[in-house]
């Protein structure tokens, strides 16, 4: 217990030295550290958004829209199939939360209709088929009644799969969109079932980014229904959509001729004649061919470019467009044209996103917090250091050395582990200052007692350490348990508090016991005192 082999002494020294070295980069500005030669450690402690400034956005994917769209596509598909087969029907529509209902005029055609409608099902992955989707292997379950009623129900497993895919896809698209805006080091991750956490360091006003993220950007090219009156209810198969300017209304066919999925590129540019900002786009081969077909068939008719149920423009086709590219014009500013091009390039979100939580900290406030934190740490260190010397003399001084090493070691460990220091984390550092010397208070008090019982200095110290250890261990384990709970259930900056304290506690187990013991033993061997200075 009270003897240290030379290799152990060397190891302890090495650990302390390494901590000092690895904590050094955190005390310099990032630009300075970047210019250092490569053999020097460069990892700095990473600051949370509340200290460096930035925006934390929690987005929720509205997965119910995905479900609704699927149901509507089933309705649309059923309408087409039944019409083509000339099967008479009534009351086709969505029924309840997850099924589509239709009644046939002629119950004898039920079996024929059933087979046609079964084609509307989309095959599901084998993984979910194993969950008991039945023999059909598609997401639709069709039940019929003898009087000609057909119910098509979307299976739960397929819906869940669809929702999950929508979130995964959304994450990818949000990432692409944010990358295009030039924010450095964004973090984008899934949280829970249907939420996405986006962290944007250095973004003080996330308004523009929220707009970019919040747009679904579902682009479709559809024909305008020229026979219908925009001020009357839309005929079946068409819908009334608003235009960019207020009060503008169009009747647009529901059938999508070409979709945004077929876009391969979109770039902001200027119209050669008017000089107005425009967005030019290019289709892939399929999209280009389809676009050529429509424009050939419908010369002289208007078609609508629809983005998120809003008509961006409805130009009249003057001549067939065969090159597979086109442009969108409107009253755009340069920024709007740029952002729209970003959205079209990154692709549409499968479902709308909404921001459900925002926490934004300006960079100045972050700097103020760091400054206040540093002052607090300095004052706290001075107070504790002085108190320990006053209370325990030389042994207090040993504890103080350990305390400072512990602070450095905590910083080094956090830099190496890439743990994030937050504002509550600074409070955690301060608490660790106080809690790490607690161990030395317990040890020193115990040594005092052992001395009073008449033990020799060496025996008293040995007993002091071994007997205080279990108390120290208990105190630290209970704290670690609580911090683990806080980490798993807390969020954001509070997690930083839990991490900082946990690391500080773990390193203090080394500094307050091993390091202090080494200092005491070395002192004892050199001075050989008859009385301990506690």
């Amino acid at each position, binding site marked *: 217990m009270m003897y240290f082999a030379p290799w152990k002494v060397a190891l302890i020294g090495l650990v302390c030295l390494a901590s000092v070295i690895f904590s050094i980069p955190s005390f310099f500005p990032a630009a300075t550290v970047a210019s250092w030669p490569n053999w020097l450690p460069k990892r700095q402690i990473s600051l949370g958004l509340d200290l460096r400034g930035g925006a934390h956005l929690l987005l929720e994917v509205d997965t119910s829209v995905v479900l609704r769209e699927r149901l509507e596509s089933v309705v649309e598909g059923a309408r087409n199939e039944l019409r083509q087969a000339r099967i008479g029907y009534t009351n086709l529509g969505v029924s309840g939360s997850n099924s589509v209902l239709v009644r046939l005029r002629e119950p004898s055609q039920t079996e024929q209709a059933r087979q046609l409608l079964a084609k509307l099902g989309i095959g599901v992955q084998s993984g979910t088929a194993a969950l008991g989707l039945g023999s059909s292997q598609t997401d639709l379950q069709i039940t019929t009644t003898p009087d000609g009623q057909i119910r098509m129900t979307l299976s739960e497993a397929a819906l869940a799969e669809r929702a999950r895919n929508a979130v995964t896809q959304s994450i990818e698209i949000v990432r692409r969109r944010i990358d295009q805006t030039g924010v450095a080091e964004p973090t984008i991750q899934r949280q829970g079932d249907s939420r996405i956490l986006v962290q944007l360091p250095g973004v003080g006003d996330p308004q523009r980014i929220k707009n970019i993220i919040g747009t679904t950007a579902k682009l479709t090219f559809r024909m305008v229904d020229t026979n219908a009156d925009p001020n009357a209810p839309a005929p079946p198969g068409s819908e009334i959509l608003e235009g960019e300017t207020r009060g503008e209304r169009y009747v647009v066919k529901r059938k999508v001729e070409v979709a945004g999925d077929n876009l391969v590129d979109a770039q902001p540019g200027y119209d050669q004649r008017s000089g107005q900002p425009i967005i030019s786009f290019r289709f892939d081969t399929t999209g280009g061919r389809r676009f050529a077909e429509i424009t050939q068939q419908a010369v002289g008719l208007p078609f609508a470019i629809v983005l998120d149920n809003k008509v961006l423009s409805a130009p009249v086709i003057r001549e067939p467009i065969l090159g597979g590219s086109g442009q969108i014009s409107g009253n755009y500013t340069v920024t709007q044209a740029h952002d729209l091009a970003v959205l079209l390039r990154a692709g549409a979100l499968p479902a709308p996103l909404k921001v459900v939580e925002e926490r934004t900290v300006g960079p100045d406030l972050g700097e103020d917090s760091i400054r206040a934190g540093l002052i607090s740490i300095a004052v706290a260190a001075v107070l504790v250091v002085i108190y320990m010397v006053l209370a325990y003399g030389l042994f207090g001084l040993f504890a103080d050395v350990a305390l400072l090493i512990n602070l450095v070691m905590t910083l080094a460990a956090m830099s190496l582990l890439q743990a994030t220091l937050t504002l509550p984390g600074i409070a955690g550092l301060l608490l660790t200052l106080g809690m790490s010397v607690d161990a030395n208070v317990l040890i020193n008090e115990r040594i005092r007692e052992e001395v009073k019982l008449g033990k020799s200095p060496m025996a008293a110290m040995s007993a002091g350490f071994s007997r205080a250890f279990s108390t120290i261990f208990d105190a630290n384990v*209970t704290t670690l348990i609580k911090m683990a709970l806080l980490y798993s259930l807390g969020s954001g900056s509070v997690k930083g508090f839990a991490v900082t304290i946990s690391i500080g506690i773990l390193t203090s187990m080394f500094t307050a016991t091993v390091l202090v013991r080494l200092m005491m033993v070395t002192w004892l061997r050199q001075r050989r005192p008859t009385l301990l200075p506690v």
Partner: protein
Amino acid sequence: MYKLRLIPDNTSIPFMKGRITGLAMSAFLSVISVILFFYPGLNYGIDFKGGIVIEARMAQPADFPALRTLIGNLNLGHSALQEFGGPTDVLIRLERQGNEDSAAQVAADKVRSALTQAYPGTEIRRVEAVGASVSEGLFRDGMLAMGLALVAMLIYIWFRFEWQFGIGAIATLVLDVTKTIGFYVVTDIQFNLVAIAAILTVMGFSVNDKVVVYDRVRENLRKYKTLPLRELIDKSINETLNRTVNTSLTVFLSTLPLALFGGEAVREFAIVLLFGIVLATSSSVFIAAPILLFLGENRLRRGQPAEQAAAQRP
């Protein structure tokens, strides 16, 4: 060399004489705290209630009546404005905006643009907008963390000591936590995620202090087989008085600067911690130890043979 001893060595203060008063006082304060918890109730922050907090720095000292009118005209429900650290710094709080999660966002954006339009040069330093369902989730998780922490402590102390000590420690812990919650009500400090961190930390102080005293009680139970329990507990408290006070004092000293210089955002957190340190220290002496006495000598001494197999404790 001069040594600072706040508590003289070899004290023999008869703490057990005050056990009834101490326990009664503690129970009384805790009951009051529970009543306060229900009425008027905690001042829940936006983390747990949903709503908006905006911190702004104006170019000139803030004109509060004009600002109140400006925010009031936005029709976003009840709002509260206060000075935050300096005359140019304003903290604006808005209540939860209905049950729609994105409503908080919309409202925050309205306030942001209204402020920067009416007062050009205003720096928006912080915006926090928490939607209704998000706050409900955070609240559930926060309460769960507190509950689990209590259970985890019970289990740990159960393993570490005999059940009598476990009951004593947990009873004290519950008394401490209720009083901390009472403190939140009385001081009107916002109860939010950071408050959960504060309460868990106070629980940590409390358990750590109890471990020191209980360890000594158990050690003395082995050492003095015939000493009456009442005197034995008094002796244990007196023997550990210095370390109880000193460990608390070092943490107190390290937290104090946070309350003084740490800035507005962490001041309240630090104040709760300081309260908790004092509370945990006093409850170790006046509550946790007397509870042992009530549990009785026979029960405490009976577990001894098993106990001796365990390692020696300080």
